[in-house]
């Protein structure tokens, strides 16, 4: 048979219906014969009921409607980015292709353009590596993605 001290540690979970059946039964039997533990239980019930009745901060109706619409947008911004960046990449690729095929462009111009292109790719690669490292050390990544 459990002591009052042991039972009191279970009262909170008993209140919430989170105890296994056998322990819940033990608490129930104990409460029938122990006035002090019963008083604690009643106080827990009273506090829980009052906390449930506390007023709740409500968002402004219009603000809330806008917020819900933004949060549950079905066309993701990701798709917009993919289309936008894809279009720019396509045009840039076509421009580069035309440029390299153009016999009127001299060598210095070719070198300049390829240097710009190489620099851009290098910068993109360094940013990508940084992002990947940051992602690996992000402790919230599992729940925010």
């Amino acid at each position: 048979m459990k002591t009052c001290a042991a039972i009191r540690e279970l009262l909170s979970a008993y209140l919430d219906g989170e105890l296994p059946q056998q322990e819940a039964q033990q608490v129930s039997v104990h409460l029938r014969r122990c006035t002090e533990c019963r008083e604690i239980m009643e106080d827990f019930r009273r506090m829980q009921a009052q906390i449930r009745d506390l007023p709740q901060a409500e968002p402004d109706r219009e603000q809330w409607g806008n917020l819900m619409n933004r949060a549950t947008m079905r066309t993701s911004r990701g798709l917009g980015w993919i289309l936008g960046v894809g279009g720019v990449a396509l045009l840039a690729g076509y421009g580069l292709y035309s440029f390299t095929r153009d016999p009127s462009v001299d060598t210095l111009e070719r070198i300049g353009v390829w240097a710009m292109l190489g620099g851009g790719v290098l910068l993109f690669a360094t940013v990508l590596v940084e992002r990947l490292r940051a992602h690996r050390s992000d402790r919230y990544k599992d729940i925010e993605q």
Partner: protein
Amino acid sequence: MPVSDRERELIERLDAVGRSGFAYACQKLRNREDALDAVQAALTSVWRTRQRLDPQRDLRGWFFRILRNRCIDVVRDRARGAHQTLGSDPVTLDDPADGLARDESRDQLRAALATLTEEQREIVLLRDYHGLSYAEIGRALNIPPGTVMSRLSRARSALRERFLAQEGAS
């Protein structure tokens, strides 16, 4: 793009959990605008994972975990001075300016809640005010269910002690 039944149901659930989360964020951040921003970020994160989410099982726990992390980030930014310290419209559970009829017992309970540690107050409110199950609280706070049980038990005992002291003092 048509909304599927599953998505419609999820939006309804998100609406309910988001409103509850707004009250939570107001209590944490004491600023309605910051609370709205945090809730929107948390709802957006949950919405993005909707294909993998089981709304019956995971929704509230995950939502509160993300929201709590957002609130922690805002509080951390404030400490660094990157964010305003307090807004002009603080709304908290223990703020008497809720515009509703006063009740002595409720005031005593608010006062008792205010004397708890942040950890104790949070777990009591997640359970009794926001109605999360132990499993959901465990997910929200990233602690095992056994720890939820013991922490909540200690918090309620502390609250009872302070509440009875408040009642005795009046």
